[in-house]
């Protein structure tokens, strides 16, 4: 074993430090200081409005964490980009890992783009916290060891609204007509809806696939009128939902309308008096939970408008990621996966804590059905929804609304 004198060691260290300071300060700073995170979310296209909120949410969490001293004393550095489409999303994810030095990937709302990023994560053996895409298939037959899913999946949304419909006598022997978004998420939601109808005595008399770029729904509305259903049900996504709601109100069809997917931004854009029926949500800014209220106050002060559910979910997701890195004192993929798979409990600003289920990496959390406030009862233009009680109820297990092992073909 070679022994170095203290003097040699000091000289050597000084030389390295000097060279680092003069020669390549930026590189050494980047490597030892900041924790880089690659963030992708759609900023254009039919989910662009949601992605804009997602960015605000993750930015706010980043600032809060960095102001409080960062993670393990290192600052977080989030690179956030428009994921555009599934192919571009995969290319960008690969580039973030290869060239930008991202240690983990986060984000996404579009289920098709989330799927391609999941493949990139698996190939590169890097962690991907898939925040906002809701297709069952992502945590089902397409699941992989490197991906964790935060938002509620299609089946949970269907169960949240479906249970409310059963309670209101709007399910058994009723004729349903559904409109379904023609991509992976819509197909999944449609499948979950059909399963719920047949299990609870609902009668599906028509189901139409609708392309994601449809702006005019009038031909579909005519078909609905011809079919004379008892209830119209939306399995649409993003801008589609807003367009349908606006034109449904325009035509004034007499059948009640409900839906298994709606984001708050789509509801806000629907226009005064146009929205009705029962819909699901993962979170809403009028939640009475104290920590949630603090978040809403801070967000509103910072951005001048209340947070949408995608802002909330990105905010709590980065907080969960930071907690995992702090507790494991590591950014190592295997260690982080191990931490989440332990089913660690996380505070996500809801009454109940949440945890990632170890066998399919799905975050187990409460969901809510909501209805719409009567005209004139809203305090402001953001305050238009009435949040129903959390599903499942406090005395029921979170598993009761989730996919069971038999229903979910996930194997890692």
């Amino acid at each position, binding site marked *: 074993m070679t022994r170095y004198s203290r003097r040699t060691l000091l000289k050597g260290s000084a030389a390295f430090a000097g060279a680092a300071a003069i020669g390549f300060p930026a590189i050494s700073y980047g490597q030892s200081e900041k924790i880089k995170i690659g963030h992708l979310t759609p*900023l*254009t*296209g039919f989910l*662009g*409005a949601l*992605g*804009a*909120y997602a960015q605000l949410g993750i930015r706010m969490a980043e600032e809060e964490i960095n102001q409080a001293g960062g993670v393990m004393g290192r600052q977080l550095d989030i690179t956030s980009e428009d994921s555009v489409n599934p192919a571009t999303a995969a290319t960008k994810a690969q580039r973030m890992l290869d060239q930008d030095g991202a240690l983990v990937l986060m984000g996404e709302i579009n289920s098709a783009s989330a799927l391609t990023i999941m493949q990139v994560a698996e190939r590169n053996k890097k962690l991907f916290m898939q925040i906002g895409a809701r297709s069952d298939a992502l945590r089902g037959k397409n699941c992989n060891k490197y991906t964790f899913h935060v938002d509620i999946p299609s089946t949970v949304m269907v169960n949240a609204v479906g249970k409310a419909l059963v309670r209101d006598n709007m399910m058994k022997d009723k004729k349903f007509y559904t409109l379904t978004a*023609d991509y992976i998420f819509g197909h999944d939601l449609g499948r979950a809806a059909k399963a719920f109808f047949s299990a609870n005595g609902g009668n599906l008399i028509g189901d*139409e*696939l*609708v*392309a994601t*770029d*449809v*702006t*005019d729904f*009038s*031909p*579909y509305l*005519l*078909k609905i*009128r*011809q079919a004379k259903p008892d209830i119209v049900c939306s399995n649409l996504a993003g*801008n589609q939902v*807003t*367009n349908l709601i*606006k*034109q449904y*109100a*325009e*035509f*004034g069809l007499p059948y009640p309308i409900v839906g298994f997917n709606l984001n708050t*931004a*789509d509801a*806000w*854009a*629907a*226009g*005064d*008096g*146009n929205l009705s029926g029962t819909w699901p949500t993962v979170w809403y800014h009028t939640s009475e939970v104290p920590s949630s209220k603090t978040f809403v106050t801070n967000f509103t002060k910072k951005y001048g*408008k209340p947070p*949408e559910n995608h802002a909330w979910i990105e905010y709590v997701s980065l907080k969960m990621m930071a907690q995992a890195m702090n507790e494991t004192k590591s950014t190592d993929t295997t260690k982080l996966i191990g931490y989440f798979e332990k089913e660690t409990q996380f505070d996500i600003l809801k009454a109940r804590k949440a945890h990632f289920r170890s066998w399919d990496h799905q975050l187990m959390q409460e969901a809510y059905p909501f209805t719409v406030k009567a005209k004139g009862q809203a305090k402001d*233009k953001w305050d238009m929804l009435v949040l129903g009680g959390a599903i499942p109820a406090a005395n029921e297990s979170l598993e009761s609304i989730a996919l069971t092992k038999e229903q979910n073909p996930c194997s890692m």
Partner: protein
Amino acid sequence: MQFGFLLEQVVNGLVLGGYYLLIALGLSLIFSVGGVVNLAHGAFYALGAYASVEITRYLGFGPAMVLSPIAVGMLGILFERFILRRFYSADPILSLLVTFGLAMVAEQAIRIVWGAAPLSASIPQVFRGSVIVGDFLFSRYRLLILAVVALVLLAIWLLLHKTSFGRVVRAGIQRPDMVAALGIRLQPYMTAIVMLGVGMAAMGGAFFAPITIVHPAMGAEIITVAFVVVVIGGLGSFWGVVIAAMLVGVVRGITIHFVPAAGEASIYVLMFLILLVRPRGLLGERIEKFE
């Protein structure tokens, strides 16, 4: 009964065609007279929608439907005077590039001013709901749009065919060199055409804001359909564009009746088939400068 349902889709398609027409007619006029494919046309549609939402907030629905197209039409004058004018005799690829760039700048500008989240807009109470005529269901609001489109169409037709202004414009489409030889400068006419064209697009945006989502990318969504209508109709033909708009609306409606998932693809198939049979479009005239 099946036939009745189909007929209802056909009639609805005609109504929808009226809306496509508002956007496509201006695009076609600018194309025919200036030889410029205005890819920024959708941006004016979006601006019309945003302006109408803002004006509705202060002055109400009626004034917004009038003022928004006028305001955007004024913007069109600046657009023609300072940008478009430089590209009439240039390589067409240059005007494509500049209007495409402008469309992107406009979309981002909307995002900066109004934010990425969609704006909320509703139909005034009087025009809500639908009327049933015989077996057919019509949205009251769309009937209003149809009436407005019919009026605009009549006005434009009269302008082009019964006034000296229209004679110069029509001559300018066919033989700009002859018009110049007669000592008539086409530039002021072009300014007026662009103002009218983008004003109509803005009117489309204003009327559709209450029934479609108002968001920054709405212009990019409409420009493709408008372009398809212009191509199917043929250049330089007023009635070609009118027929094409109705045809696109009807074909889409019928396709959705039978194969809903193919609704949006059907209009491109239609364009493909028509171009196979009539490369200049349905009523396209032989225009020397484009041959």
